[in-house]
Protein backbone atom coordinates (compact mmCIF):
# COMPACT_ATOMS: atom_id res chain seq x y z
CA UNK A 1 0.00 0.00 0.00
CA UNK A 2 1.39 3.44 -0.86
CA UNK A 3 2.62 5.37 2.19
CA UNK A 4 0.37 8.34 1.35
CA UNK A 5 -2.67 6.08 1.43
CA UNK A 6 -1.51 4.52 4.73
CA UNK A 7 -1.04 7.97 6.22
CA UNK A 8 -4.46 9.03 4.99
CA UNK A 9 -6.26 6.03 6.47
CA UNK A 10 -4.41 6.49 9.77
CA UNK A 11 -5.62 10.08 9.86
CA UNK A 12 -9.16 9.02 8.97
CA UNK A 13 -9.19 6.34 11.64
CA UNK A 14 -7.94 8.83 14.21
CA UNK A 15 -10.54 11.41 13.22
CA UNK A 16 -13.35 8.86 13.23
CA UNK A 17 -12.31 7.33 16.56
CA UNK A 18 -13.86 10.15 18.59
CA UNK A 19 -17.41 9.15 17.82
CA UNK A 20 -16.78 5.58 18.98
CA UNK A 21 -15.66 6.38 22.51
CA UNK A 22 -18.89 7.44 24.21
CA UNK A 23 -21.68 4.97 23.59
CA UNK A 24 -24.85 6.43 25.10
CA UNK A 25 -25.84 3.30 27.00
CA UNK A 26 -23.75 1.15 29.31
CA UNK A 27 -23.19 -0.42 32.68
CA UNK A 28 -22.90 2.98 34.37
CA UNK A 29 -26.59 3.82 33.92
CA UNK A 30 -27.69 5.44 37.19
CA UNK A 31 -30.91 4.36 38.85
CA UNK A 32 -33.02 6.29 41.37
CA UNK A 33 -36.32 5.38 42.95
CA UNK A 34 -38.97 8.06 43.12
CA UNK A 35 -42.35 8.82 44.64
CA UNK A 36 -43.92 10.49 41.60
CA UNK A 37 -46.57 7.79 41.08
CA UNK A 38 -47.51 7.89 44.75
CA UNK A 39 -47.76 11.71 44.81
CA UNK A 40 -49.71 11.77 41.56
CA UNK A 41 -52.20 9.28 43.00
CA UNK A 42 -52.49 11.37 46.16
CA UNK A 43 -53.35 14.42 44.05
CA UNK A 44 -55.76 12.33 41.95
CA UNK A 45 -54.03 13.20 38.68
CA UNK A 46 -53.62 11.17 35.51
CA UNK A 47 -50.20 10.91 33.90
CA UNK A 48 -51.45 13.11 31.07
CA UNK A 49 -52.70 15.80 33.46
CA UNK A 50 -49.41 15.86 35.36
CA UNK A 51 -47.50 15.93 32.07
CA UNK A 52 -49.56 18.87 30.83
CA UNK A 53 -49.00 20.72 34.10
CA UNK A 54 -45.24 20.20 33.87
CA UNK A 55 -44.90 20.74 30.12
CA UNK A 56 -43.87 17.19 29.27
CA UNK A 57 -45.58 14.24 27.60
CA UNK A 58 -47.62 11.52 29.30
CA UNK A 59 -44.99 9.03 28.14
CA UNK A 60 -42.28 10.94 29.98
CA UNK A 61 -44.24 10.89 33.25
CA UNK A 62 -44.73 7.14 32.74
CA UNK A 63 -41.01 6.66 32.06
CA UNK A 64 -40.08 8.64 35.21
CA UNK A 65 -42.52 6.67 37.37
CA UNK A 66 -41.18 3.36 36.10
CA UNK A 67 -37.54 4.37 36.56
CA UNK A 68 -36.78 4.29 32.85
CA UNK A 69 -35.93 7.99 32.70
CA UNK A 70 -34.12 10.29 35.10
CA UNK A 71 -35.50 13.80 34.61
CA UNK A 72 -33.25 16.80 34.13
CA UNK A 73 -32.61 18.99 37.17
CA UNK A 74 -35.09 21.68 36.01
CA UNK A 75 -37.80 19.05 35.51
CA UNK A 76 -37.04 17.39 38.85
CA UNK A 77 -37.33 20.78 40.57
CA UNK A 78 -40.56 21.51 38.66
CA UNK A 79 -42.00 18.18 39.85
CA UNK A 80 -40.96 18.91 43.42
CA UNK A 81 -42.44 22.42 43.35
CA UNK A 82 -45.66 21.14 41.80
CA UNK A 83 -46.15 18.72 44.70
CA UNK A 84 -44.95 21.24 47.29
CA UNK A 85 -42.03 19.02 48.16
CA UNK A 86 -38.28 18.85 47.61
CA UNK A 87 -36.26 16.95 45.04
CA UNK A 88 -34.61 14.90 47.81
CA UNK A 89 -37.98 13.84 49.18
CA UNK A 90 -39.21 12.68 45.77
CA UNK A 91 -36.09 11.18 44.21
CA UNK A 92 -34.23 8.67 46.36
CA UNK A 93 -30.84 7.28 45.34
Amino acid at each position, binding site marked *: *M*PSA*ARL*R*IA*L*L*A*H*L*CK*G*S*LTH*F*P*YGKHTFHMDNRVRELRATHDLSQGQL*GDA*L*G*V*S*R*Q*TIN*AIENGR*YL*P*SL*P*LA*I*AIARYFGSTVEQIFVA
Partner: protein
Amino acid sequence: MTTPTRRHGFRAASAIILLLGGVGVAIATWVGGSHGWAIAAIVAYAVLAGGAYVWAGRSNDVAALMRGGGDERQRGLDRDATAITAIVMSIAAVLGALISIGRTGNPGVYGEFCVIGGITYAVSLFVLQRRRH
Protein backbone atom coordinates in the same frame (compact mmCIF):
# COMPACT_ATOMS: atom_id res chain seq x y z
CA MET B 1 -34.51 28.47 36.20
CA THR B 2 -36.72 27.82 33.21
CA THR B 3 -39.47 25.27 33.48
CA PRO B 4 -39.03 22.45 30.95
CA THR B 5 -41.38 22.86 28.04
CA ARG B 6 -42.65 20.52 25.41
CA ARG B 7 -42.47 21.62 21.79
CA HIS B 8 -45.57 20.62 19.88
CA GLY B 9 -43.94 20.93 16.47
CA PHE B 10 -45.60 20.91 13.08
CA ARG B 11 -47.58 17.88 11.96
CA ALA B 12 -46.57 18.07 8.30
CA ALA B 13 -42.82 18.45 9.03
CA SER B 14 -41.79 14.88 8.15
CA ALA B 15 -44.24 14.72 5.24
CA ILE B 16 -42.77 17.88 3.71
CA ILE B 17 -39.21 16.57 4.11
CA LEU B 18 -40.20 13.28 2.46
CA LEU B 19 -41.91 15.12 -0.38
CA LEU B 20 -38.89 17.37 -0.95
CA GLY B 21 -36.62 14.31 -0.89
CA GLY B 22 -38.93 12.54 -3.31
CA VAL B 23 -38.93 15.48 -5.70
CA GLY B 24 -35.11 15.53 -5.55
CA VAL B 25 -34.85 11.80 -6.25
CA ALA B 26 -37.44 12.04 -9.03
CA ILE B 27 -35.67 14.97 -10.71
CA ALA B 28 -32.30 13.19 -10.52
CA THR B 29 -33.81 9.97 -11.87
CA TRP B 30 -35.61 11.87 -14.66
CA VAL B 31 -32.41 13.68 -15.63
CA GLY B 32 -30.66 10.31 -15.59
CA GLY B 33 -33.08 9.15 -18.27
CA SER B 34 -35.25 6.74 -16.26
CA HIS B 35 -38.55 8.54 -16.62
CA GLY B 36 -40.66 5.61 -15.46
CA TRP B 37 -38.61 5.21 -12.28
CA ALA B 38 -38.81 8.94 -11.68
CA ILE B 39 -42.62 8.83 -11.69
CA ALA B 40 -42.57 5.70 -9.52
CA ALA B 41 -40.23 7.45 -7.07
CA ILE B 42 -42.42 10.52 -6.67
CA VAL B 43 -45.53 8.34 -6.22
CA ALA B 44 -43.74 6.19 -3.61
CA TYR B 45 -42.50 9.23 -1.71
CA ALA B 46 -45.96 10.81 -1.85
CA VAL B 47 -47.45 7.65 -0.32
CA LEU B 48 -44.74 7.67 2.37
CA ALA B 49 -45.40 11.35 3.04
CA GLY B 50 -49.11 10.61 3.47
CA GLY B 51 -48.29 7.85 5.92
CA ALA B 52 -45.90 10.13 7.80
CA TYR B 53 -48.58 12.83 8.06
CA VAL B 54 -51.08 10.34 9.49
CA TRP B 55 -48.49 8.86 11.90
CA ALA B 56 -47.40 12.32 13.06
CA GLY B 57 -50.94 12.98 14.28
CA ARG B 58 -50.60 10.35 17.01
CA SER B 59 -49.48 11.01 20.57
CA ASN B 60 -46.48 8.69 20.93
CA ASP B 61 -42.76 9.52 21.13
CA VAL B 62 -42.02 8.86 17.46
CA ALA B 63 -44.94 11.01 16.34
CA ALA B 64 -43.72 13.88 18.53
CA LEU B 65 -40.27 13.68 16.92
CA MET B 66 -41.79 13.42 13.44
CA ARG B 67 -43.52 16.73 14.13
CA GLY B 68 -40.16 18.21 15.11
CA GLY B 69 -41.43 18.55 18.67
CA GLY B 70 -41.09 16.62 21.90
CA ASP B 71 -40.06 17.16 25.49
CA GLU B 72 -36.62 16.71 27.04
CA ARG B 73 -36.83 12.89 27.15
CA GLN B 74 -38.10 12.63 23.57
CA ARG B 75 -35.39 14.98 22.31
CA GLY B 76 -32.89 12.89 24.26
CA LEU B 77 -34.16 9.77 22.50
CA ASP B 78 -33.67 11.57 19.20
CA ARG B 79 -30.12 12.58 20.18
CA ASP B 80 -29.23 9.03 21.25
CA ALA B 81 -30.69 7.53 18.08
CA THR B 82 -28.76 10.08 16.02
CA ALA B 83 -25.55 9.23 17.90
CA ILE B 84 -26.02 5.48 17.35
CA THR B 85 -26.71 6.12 13.67
CA ALA B 86 -23.52 8.19 13.42
CA ILE B 87 -21.49 5.45 15.13
CA VAL B 88 -22.80 2.77 12.76
CA MET B 89 -22.19 5.00 9.74
CA SER B 90 -18.67 5.80 10.99
CA ILE B 91 -17.89 2.10 11.34
CA ALA B 92 -19.29 1.46 7.86
CA ALA B 93 -17.21 4.32 6.44
CA VAL B 94 -13.99 3.11 8.09
CA LEU B 95 -14.59 -0.49 6.99
CA GLY B 96 -15.47 0.72 3.50
CA ALA B 97 -12.29 2.79 3.38
CA LEU B 98 -10.18 -0.18 4.52
CA ILE B 99 -11.77 -2.49 1.97
CA SER B 100 -11.37 0.14 -0.75
CA ILE B 101 -7.69 0.64 0.11
CA GLY B 102 -7.20 -3.13 0.03
CA ARG B 103 -8.74 -3.29 -3.42
CA THR B 104 -7.53 -0.12 -5.11
CA GLY B 105 -4.93 1.43 -2.81
CA ASN B 106 -7.24 4.40 -2.26
CA PRO B 107 -10.00 4.92 0.34
CA GLY B 108 -12.19 6.54 -2.30
CA VAL B 109 -15.49 8.11 -1.30
CA TYR B 110 -15.44 6.26 2.05
CA GLY B 111 -12.35 8.20 3.00
CA GLU B 112 -14.14 11.44 2.27
CA PHE B 113 -17.02 10.34 4.50
CA CYS B 114 -14.50 9.60 7.26
CA VAL B 115 -12.87 13.02 6.90
CA ILE B 116 -16.25 14.79 6.90
CA GLY B 117 -17.36 12.79 9.96
CA GLY B 118 -14.12 13.32 11.83
CA ILE B 119 -13.94 17.04 11.16
CA THR B 120 -17.64 17.48 12.01
CA TYR B 121 -17.09 15.69 15.31
CA ALA B 122 -14.05 17.77 16.21
CA VAL B 123 -15.73 21.07 15.29
CA SER B 124 -18.95 20.10 17.09
CA LEU B 125 -17.02 19.22 20.23
CA PHE B 126 -15.15 22.53 20.05
CA VAL B 127 -18.36 24.54 19.64
CA LEU B 128 -20.54 22.56 22.06
CA GLN B 129 -18.09 22.69 24.96
CA ARG B 130 -18.32 26.48 24.83
CA ARG B 131 -22.10 26.50 24.95
CA ARG B 132 -24.12 26.40 28.14
CA HIS B 133 -26.16 23.20 28.19
